[in-house]
């Protein structure tokens, strides 16, 4: 089968690759780039374990072909921590026990990240609705909701710090 050349930015790095046109973005990330933090949990785009950010927006990477990532900016879970320092949502999920088995976690965090970009102060109902494309079988979601709330606080603090630093 022939291949196509794509140019994309992944976690801030420019990536050029030859891919089969039928290859899903999730398999390109996991198998060609070894970014194994993005997971596959279903075949029907219900579970959201494969969620990544495409041009800033949460997308299920099993619903997109790798070739469709051409010219786009992708962020995976590996891209949320800088120099091994965890981002605010990652810290929040750990501290509030927003995970048990850890398999849905990457997708949960990326969807929450997008949710908080759109809405800095989501209500509990808005968080639960916002996470309806991501399934967790372990936690019952309560600790995930608490993690997102706490993550929102940590993100605000971080922005305030940055503002102070700029001033």
């Amino acid at each position, binding site marked *: 089968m022939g291949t196509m050349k794509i140019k994309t930015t992944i976690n801030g790095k420019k990536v050029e690759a030859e891919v089969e046109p039928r290859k899903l973005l999730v398999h390109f990330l996991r198998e060609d780039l070894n970014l194994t933090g993005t*997971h596959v949990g*279903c075949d029907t785009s*219900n579970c959201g374990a494969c969620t990544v950010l495409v041009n800033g927006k949460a997308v299920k990477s099993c619903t997109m072909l790798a070739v469709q990532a051409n010219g786009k900016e992708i962020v995976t879970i590996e891209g949320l921590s800088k120099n091994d320092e965890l981002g605010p949502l990652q810290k929040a999920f750990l501290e509030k026990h927003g995970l048990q*088995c850890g398999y849905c976690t990457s997708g949960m965090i990326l969807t929450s990240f997008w949710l908080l970009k759109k809405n800095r102060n989501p209500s509990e109902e808005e968080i*639960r609705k916002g996470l309806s494309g991501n*399934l967790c*079988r372990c*936690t*019952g979601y309560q600790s995930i909701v608490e993690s997102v709330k706490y993550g929102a606080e940590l993100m605000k603090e971080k922005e305030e710090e940055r503002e102070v630093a700029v001033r």
Partner: protein
Amino acid sequence: MSTLNWGERELAYDVSGFVSGKGHFVDDIKLPGMLHMTVLRSPYARARIVSLKGGMSSKDLKARMASVGEGASSEAGLSIEPVFATEFVNYVGEPVAAVFAEDRYKSADLLESIEVDYEPMKPVVTIDDALSMGPIHLGRKNNIMAETIKGADFKDPDSPIVIEDTLENERISANPIEPRGIVASFSEGMLNVWISTQAVHSIKEGLVESLRNSELLIHVMQTDTGGGFGSKGGLYPEYVIAAFASMKFGKPVKWIETRREHLSSTHPGRGMRGKVKLFAEKDGKITGLRGEVMIDAGAYDSGIASFSPGFVAMQMTGPYFIESAQVRGKALFTNKVPQGPYRGAGRPEASFLIERMVDMLADELKMDPADLRLMNMSEKPFTSPMGLKIDGARPFFESAVKELGYMTEVKNSKGVGLSFFVLVPAVYPGESARIIIRDGRVRVWLGGNSHGQGHEVFVKKLVNEELGVPERLVTLYRGDTGMTKTGVGSWGSRSAIVGGAAIVAVCRKIKEDVVKIHGRYSTESLLSGSYDEFINNELKMPLNSFGANLATVEIGKMGNVRIKKCVAFYDVGRALNPDMVIGQIQGGMAQGIGQTLHEGLFYNDEGQLITSSISDAGVPLAEDLPNFTVKIAENRSSLPHGAKGLGESPTIGVPTALIRAIEKASGKRLRRTPVTPEELIS
């Protein structure tokens, strides 16, 4: 990520890695020359294989599945599942052949190279079919896989109230978010296996037995395991095929389950119909119970299919003191995937039967359901007619009625439900543990393997308590048959009990070793030396954990159920880590709601699985669920570390409280899970 580079850090349980994508799941493994395996599965519930060409099949590997793990069957017979279907296929999703290629896309393409001709036959789909139709297996007289009676026969009590009903639980898929998967790599005479599992020793034992190769050198290592809930405790045909293929090709072989395969071919739980007759006095005293439990066991004696009816029957008197009881159990063959354990594995089914009946008796007598339950409790320990040892339950449940806020709720709500239960965890036969002390660090392995429960948290705590070593110097590694000679598994609410007891025992052995050398124990002398101890810590004693739940609901015009409150009050023994305990309970409560309102695996008359996605299967979403209220009581068990079981408490207690609340709110008598909106407004 190549497993060849997995060092000590990569082999430890480490929750913190998951938030930055640094897990070590089985599908993350890449090995040089690795082949991807794809399985061709039966599209029919029942058919004769007329011809089969291409791929690897029973012509290459004519073997039968070993029965290992939770509820393993001891009777070998005609009904053991073949690794590859031989002359007949008996369920949609049964492995028929397998193909291998260097990537998953090419491997899937190769499915087209296999040609199979089937001659479809009329399938046995339901419990009624199984009772009325001829046997699905040649050489059997009927569709009864296993039959049992629990409790002695008794003369019907001379009681004025007799109620009788039939109740059902639909089959449920465990649906961990990580599906099943394995990498098998045979090289230099050794079969290395990496697998998503609850029990590495079951996998080892099962592969050796199924491959009929007792000389096989085999090393089974657990990868990070993304949930299991019972479904990853035992052996499956794909594991045997992958191991065989790796030995045949001399290359590593990877198989990763798709979600559709999980729904069709991973052992689902529940699938129970029970008839119960309850005898009672006018004041509410229950004088006798007769029951019949039938299990929709599937096509083969795998999973817990033949163990189920007796296990449900054993527990059917719940926490109540009922003088006379007898229950008959049958596991029935159907042309469906074999039944297996799912969080509770018989406990929720038994509780569903007794709790529904007690609620019906309360209605019959116009008594308050809490009062009726309490009056059938014992202050003192007793042995049930089925032989279960039950602690004195009444004091706990009297406090539960208060803790749950039941009295206030009854006054304020028309849709309120209450449930009581006793959880009997799987203590027998104990668990193994190994500790190695070297370079000032404590390295720990357990025979039963965490799949999201966070065993490392209690292990660190107990090692700290026993040996005085700071928690940061203690590491628990994932399951590894190279590090523990024997082991059992993680299921049946057992790990903190039996794993914890094994840790305490092995720590005490090491302490003795230190005393022998130094005359007295100190953490400093421990950490400056080298020690290595393994223990197979046998435990047989029966344990009880009591629990109670409350639910309140409203029903919308379209029959949609809105859960207002979902409250638990459980005796968890000593909570080794209260945050983890509460997290376990919340997650189980979500699954209890799932069973009651959303979840099921549905088949049509032809035995075709019509549940085609994880959403169809009803795994609840965040917006489907309420905030849970969890209260715990800490009455220590008799074990040195005081733990009791809790993982299955919520899947036992939530469905029964919730269905009662829905019954009260809707005014409809409810007899099965899942409850559908249609039946509430019809």
